[in-house]
């Protein structure tokens, strides 16, 4: 009897146990922004989503640097990563990054649609007895939230209506090239990210240059950082004009560019211009907060014992505001 009861409770608490993904971490998330990994694993666990690690995965490889350097390398390592999800017996590969999505989704597309590339890359992989059989679909966290969970079910998860003013940054590779992307929305007028943020109880505040690139991609940050920061500065100035509680992203490289970037753009500011201090959070952090979980469960801490680590912009003003927002249930009780 008790056993059945426990199972029932678990079903209620973990409503999405039919969903299963191989989790592709990439580089920036595990090695520079582990709070994103923490928040995402925590939220997926609470939702009952089954996550299988992709043991031995390498860099996707990054679409900016490595596709620029050598397309053969880009295709080979991308396809190798796809075989890890395949050998996990999963059909869905989940990435939390626009860049990894850009690479892996396009490699998937090339391997499935171009017989010549499929043949030659599989010949290379055969050297290590690997073969990509086309059974893996590359997914991005926004796409999983929007399609696999869906807006109605997202709404039902909200236990704390945050009503935050957020500046959404889509990033590029989740939108373009549109011919190979998932959402079926106009890349000049996408709404899926705004719809998700509104569904989980916050406001998406419109700002000029909302769809502009953050500047990090294409190896621009790596090669010519000051040029890449010009993009970031232009966007930050527009975001400041409308006034928000935080910037919300769905890509760790955009996250880094906005977070560390706010420190780095200091040297590019006009005389007397105020420095930027806008907290940057990842979509799974916003979701976790809306579900009523504590900021520290979602990696929203700033360890004082380590220097020069993420986040570079303090969460404090945001956390202070969230502290003052009661759970919806408590509000109803009043």
């Amino acid at each position, binding site marked *: 009897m008790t056993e059945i009861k426990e199972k029932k409770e678990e079903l209620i608490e973990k409503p999405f146990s039919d969903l299963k993904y191989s989790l592709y971490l990439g580089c920036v998330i595990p090695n520079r922004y582990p709070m994103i990994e923490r928040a995402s694993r925590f939220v997926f666990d609470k939702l009952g989503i089954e996550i299988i690690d992709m043991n031995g995965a390498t860099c996707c490889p990054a679409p900016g*640097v490595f596709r620029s350097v050598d397309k053969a390398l880009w295709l080979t390592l991308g396809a190798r990563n796809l075989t890890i999800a395949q050998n996990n017996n999963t059909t869905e590969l989940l990435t939390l990054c626009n860049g990894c999505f850009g690479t892996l989704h396009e490699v998937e597309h090339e391997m499935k649609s171009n017989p010549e590339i499929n043949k030659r890359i599989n010949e290379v*992989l055969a050297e290590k007895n690997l073969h990509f059989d086309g059974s893996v679909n590359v997914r991005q966290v926004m796409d999983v939230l929007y399609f696999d969970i869906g807006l109605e079910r997202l709404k039902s998860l909200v236990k704390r209506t945050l009503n935050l003013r957020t500046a959404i940054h889509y990033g590029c590779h989740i939108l373009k090239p549109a011919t190979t992307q998932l959402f079926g929305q106009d890349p000049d007028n996408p709404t899926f990210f705004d719809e998700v943020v509104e569904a989980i109880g916050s406001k998406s505040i419109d700002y000029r240059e909302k769809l502009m690139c953050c500047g990090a991609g294409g190896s621009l940050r790596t090669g010519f950082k000051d040029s890449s920061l010009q993009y970031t500065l232009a966007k930050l100035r527009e975001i400041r004009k409308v006034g928000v509680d935080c910037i919300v992203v769905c890509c760790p490289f955009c996250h880094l560019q906005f977070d560390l970037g706010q420190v780095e753009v200091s040297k590019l500011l006009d005389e007397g211009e105020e420095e930027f201090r806008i907290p940057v959070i990842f979509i799974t952090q916003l979701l976790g907060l809306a579900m009523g979980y504590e900021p520290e469960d979602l990696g929203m801490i700033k360890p004082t014992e380590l220097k020069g680590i993420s986040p570079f912009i303090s969460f404090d003003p945001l956390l202070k505001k969230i502290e003052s927002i009661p759970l919806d249930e408590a509000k109803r009780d009043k």
Partner: protein
Amino acid sequence: MPQDQKLLKYSSEYSDELSLDDELKKIRSCIQCGMCSAVCPSGSFTALVTRKIMRKALAGDHSVLSGPEIWYCSTCFNCYERCPRTIPVTNVILRLRNMAVREGYLPDNLKSVIKNLANTGHAVPLGGPDSKWAKLRELHKLKKVPPTVHSFPEALDELFTLLDKIKFNARIPYR
């Protein structure tokens, strides 16, 4: 040989690993309308003029490979989406970069990232189990070393074998 054939011939010399020239051939239909430059954010901040890149590529002008401009693109794909002749402009720029690299024109700052991947499997590596990033992972209640190639030496060997198979280290000597 017509001018526009020069770059295509030149590119075919480098297509030993894969036939990747189909995208490059599409620049033949460029009408120099400037749409790609009009929608290019980098154009506002850097010396990148995508329309000129297309013209130089078409003319077989070698300076398109030796100059820094092709590296100012952040690959936002605005030009790719908007080109009225459906030229995959961003992909053409990426292909030109591949050719530039073979010619030895690689921005210095990118070399260390290539080295990182070729040696560790990550473009942005953790820096070992004693690094501040490993400690930060621990503070976030995660495994100190992520379950990527960092935790599996055999995966790193696999990477090295595949890099050898595509002659990466011979072609791109930055390891």
